[in-house]
């Protein structure tokens, strides 16, 4: 904040209004969508039709929202037909107001050079329990470990940090937290840092 006002030359002030090409909201007709990414999204829509929802198409990034029952099938399609071969990152996002926890897979490709810039964002949501008993409540999702081997540790991290249990994961154990952690999964929004 105030530490931000230093002594270097100032070019412009107050640039909070974004340039229209960047960070633009999706699905508005007048914005021209990037061609390659549009083609990628179309291929997935063609195959799965209404079972998936294309959330946005930005340069190098396509995001798809999938229901929990379809995610394995979609992931298999992405691996076998579209050549995405590894997961760069798996993140959980907690939405207490929707009573849902979102799990976001960022998939990339090493083998297909046309996809080397692309990240395909595959998102799905699990039901969120108010009083979580990680592993023994309804907060469950199918694991993608059989399809993308690289998600193994990422999914273990989400299990401990959000309490999302991945069904079919061979090694559902804690990873970073201590074994005797008995509080809420810490990255949920209702786990508050002391003094904040």
């Amino acid at each position, binding site marked *: 904040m105030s530490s931000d006002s*230093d002594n*270097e030359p100032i070019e412009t002030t107050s640039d909070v209004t974004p340039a229209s090409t960047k960070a633009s909201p999706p699905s508005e007709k007048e914005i021209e969508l990037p061609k390659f990414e549009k083609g990628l999204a179309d291929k997935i829509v063609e195959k799965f039709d209404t079972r998936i929802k294309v959330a946005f198409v930005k340069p190098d990034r396509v995001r798809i929202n999938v229901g929990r029952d379809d995610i394995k099938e979609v992931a298999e399609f992405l691996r076998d037909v579209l050549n995405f071969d590894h997961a*760069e990152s798996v993140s959980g996002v907690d939405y207490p107001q929707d009573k849902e926890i979102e799990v976001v897979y960022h998939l990339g490709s090493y083998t297909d050079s046309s996809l080397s810039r692309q990240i395909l964002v595959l998102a799905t949501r699990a039901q969120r329990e108010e009083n979580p008993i990680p592993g023994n409540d309804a907060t469950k999702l199918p694991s993608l470990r059989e399809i993308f081997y690289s998600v193994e540790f990422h999914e273990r991290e989400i299990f401990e940090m959000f309490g999302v249990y991945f069904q079919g994961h061979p090694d559902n154990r804690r990873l*970073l937290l201590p074994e005797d952690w008995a509080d809420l999964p810490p*990255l949920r929004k209702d786990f508050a840092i002391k003094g904040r």
Partner: protein
Amino acid sequence: MNNELPPGLALQKVDERIMTLNVGPQHPGSGHMRIIVQIDGDYIVACDPDPGYVHRGEEKMAEYRNYITNIPHLERPVIHDSCNILYPYVLGVEELLGIEVPERAKYIRVIASELNRCVYTMYWLAIYGIFLGHSTMFMWPAGDRELLIDLLEKMTGARVTHAHFVPGGIRNDLPPNFEDVCLRQVNYFEKRIKEYAAIFYDNPILIARTANTGVLSRQDAIRLGTTGSVLRASGVDYDLRKKEPYDVYDELDVHSNVMNEGDSYARSKIPWLDMLESCNIIRQALQKMPKSGSVRVKLKPNPKGKGFDSVYKRVESGRGSLGCYIVSDGKPEPYRLKLSVGSFRNLIALPYLLKGEKLGNMPAVYWSLNYWPVEADR
């Protein structure tokens, strides 16, 4: 019996022949983590990495601070590569806020991040050397690293934790006469690290210890989603500075180093080749950089994105691809911030590489993964 246990706990079967050995977390050879290895005689039959001893909850802390005050604590996971770990975060915030960065700032960022890559790699090389019993290789990189730390201190004001990158550019312009000093130091640095070939990389003892140990095939490297030097040592040419150039990397001639062996020797050589390449990049950037101009777009206090948005940006750090996923809900603080770090992604390769190896080869394999435990734990 196993089914009755709640998830998160596991029982281990004990065999008469198999001994379970905890390497770490206090043992210096494992860094700040524990590696549980099961050995049969001298051979490792199973390995279970147990990170988390330096987990600091950076991602949770980021949800309580605004986009500017997040900068100093987000570089803490890898303080000696602090420019590179801030880079994807800063790029992401710039995309969320729609900021255009001045050209000169982009070049200075590239120089800073390449210098930082070398500083990190020298630190790693020193550790790699000492754990292979090569104490000269500990002393030399630790000493030569000071050359670049001095440069970064001139540039940013701090020796290791620079907090130099900010959304909108960099914190301060270069000091006067920096270009000449930088060029001189980098040329000398390059001359120094070329000498490492004779003492370390061409050393028959090192080759005997690391060649053909912990071989990761090309298919496995892809399947396990490894990144950075581990991936490129297994014959996959994937360097984000070339594949998805950020800032001004597309205007520079970047050569990515690839080796096909996939063993510990290749994994230890790639970062050294990368350092030589970094020297080239720094020289090019110094030449092409605009000699004057603004280096920072000034922001309002408490900048915020508009509405619900998410962004995933990634850069090539010293340990491979480093991604930052930011979800914004229109408030000055990120709604969720996730760092997907190279160390964490490469960790999954460890159980595969150690299986069947001799216990004595563990340091050679483990440290060749270019793994930094603090970064993996975040």
